[in-house]
């Protein structure tokens, strides 16, 4: 029999707050981090979910003396610190970092690569601050990285390679990423509207998130969620467009449910990807219907946080667990009118609910998809 693996602690740093409770309260009030920001010189502002740098520095200075960190590194350190204070790091503790672009902003106007743009250097720098003893593992799998990072921790612990793991995920808003998505004409002209008829694209967001995952529970935990199953299946269809048939997402969910050994009707809540592009949301609706999951309450967090790339999967997993602990479903912000060819049960207002089984999904460039199933214990 395989070891059971649990998430027993988490934290996040977002425009809505620098800990989970402030984020949760903001979400209950329906606040969004998305606003107009001037990101690229000589260009119109973009809607994006951006952390106030002054506030970030203020928070950072309370906890850290050393100032030799990039903005993203400060976000990472702030998200991880409370977890490291509560859970001991041993030589069987894994450190897993999920990101798409890391410190890519440092590449601007450079003639050679600065060391800090290497993702392994970024991870090692964070690891050294907290004294991790094992080599950092960086997961960089586009927009599904944050979900896969949980799966990597679960699988490596089950394989007996580690006893526990700290998983962090983060990406920051950069001219690099904004200009790129803009060149795809994928950026929405207002606050994004996942699954809505009038959706017109994504908002880029930034955040860091951290979770503690372990095979050994103790008495002091306030909560625990068992990671029941995971899968990450490629569409094998197109590198920049989602599959029309939702094959990869469908198969990812199916495999994760099979490993979790539960029936689809058991799923109490789906924390979906919902980027608010025409094709992504349509693809998801098709995949969920193929899985007979069209009646499960579902939301996308992108209307609150934008698309935080490598951080989104982990951040949204945390919010979904917080939802389960508070017995409250959070609405999919800005959804008004059905905008997919197949029906979905999109949550429209805060509502009480008993949530035991959570399905978290994500999809991204390169045709990648990922799904995990969590159980509230």
């Amino acid at each position: 029999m395989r070891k059971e693996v649990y998430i027993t602690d988490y934290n996040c740093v977002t425009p809505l707050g620098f800990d989970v409770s402030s984020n949760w309260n903001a979400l209950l009030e329906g606040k969004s981090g998305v606003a107009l920001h001037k990101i690229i010189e000589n260009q119109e502002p973009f809607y994006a979910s951006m952390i106030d740098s002054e506030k970030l520095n203020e928070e950072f200075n309370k906890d850290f003396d050393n100032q030799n960190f990039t903005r993203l590194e400060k976000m990472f350190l702030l998200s991880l610190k409370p977890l490291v204070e509560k859970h001991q790091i041993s030589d069987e503790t894994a450190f897993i970092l999920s990101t798409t672009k890391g410190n890519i902003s440092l590449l601007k106007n450079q003639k050679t690569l600065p060391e800090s743009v290497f993702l392994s250097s970024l991870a090692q720098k964070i690891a050294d601050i907290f004294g991790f003893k094992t080599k950092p593992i960086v997961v960089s799998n586009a927009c599904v990285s944050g979900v896969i990072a949980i799966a990597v921790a679960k699988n490596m612990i089950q394989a007996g390679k580690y006893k526990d793991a700290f998983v962090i995920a983060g990406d920051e808003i950069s001219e690099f990423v904004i200009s790129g998505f803009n060149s795809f004409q994928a950026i929405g002209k207002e606050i994004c509207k996942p699954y809505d008829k009038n959706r017109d694209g994504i908002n880029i967001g930034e955040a860091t998130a951290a979770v503690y995952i372990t095979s050994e529970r103790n008495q002091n935990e306030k909560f625990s969620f068992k990671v029941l199953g995971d899968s990450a299946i490629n569409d094998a269809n197109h590198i920049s467009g989602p599959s029309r048939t939702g094959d990869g997402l469908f198969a990812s969910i199916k495999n994760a449910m099979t490993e979790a050994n539960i029936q689809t009707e058991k799923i109490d809540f789906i924390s979906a990807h919902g980027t608010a592009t025409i094709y992504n949301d349509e693809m998801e609706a098709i995949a969920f219907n193929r899985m007979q999951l069209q009646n499960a309450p579902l939301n996308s967090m992108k209307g609150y946080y934008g698309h935080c790339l490598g951080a989104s999967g982990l951040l949204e997993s945390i919010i979904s667990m917080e939802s389960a602990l508070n017995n409250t479903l959070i609405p999919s912000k800005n959804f008004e009118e059905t905008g997919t060819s197949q029906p979905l049960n999109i949550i429209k207002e805060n509502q009480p609910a008993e949530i035991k089984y959570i399905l978290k999904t994500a999809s991204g460039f390169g045709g990648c998809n990922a799904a995990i199933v969590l159980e509230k214990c």
Partner: protein
Amino acid sequence: MKMMKKTDICTIENSKIVLNNNIIFEIPTENFSDFAKEVYKSLALNYPKFHKMDNLSKLAFLASEMILKDEDHSRTALVFANRSSSLDTDFKYQESINSQENYFPSPAVFVYTLPNICVGEISIKHKMQTENAFFVLDEFDEQFLNDYSVQILQSGKADKVLCGWVELYQESYNAFVYLLTL
């Protein structure tokens, strides 16, 4: 490690492709793009999408092509890693947005600014709707890749894993790709 079999190994470095200890292709050139073009021609790969790929994808694709051939890989997972992520293309993309006067971000370049795109390219070529993961590590760590792959095999999520290190930055490259089964 128990019961794990490494069935095929392909390495690409110094303008040379070696498959299971046999030299498949070798040409004296310093330049990766020329090398890739020559391989494509000489092995008659006949896959026009190849020419649109960035160099990291070309490297990963060529190494995988030697091993996957035309066999059925509908149950073969892909687990890849490297050190430089997609920095080769990141750097080129950044140059296209460095100056206000010369501001030409291209979606065709931007899409390759993620290291897992090479895994997507291999999946598309061989219609592999299978488990995939991309890791960035400071050095080639075969033990880690094997550990991760073996648990995929043991979980029953795949029958084989195409595993590998695909590192490329400018003219410095090397691929070490192999097939694992239980």
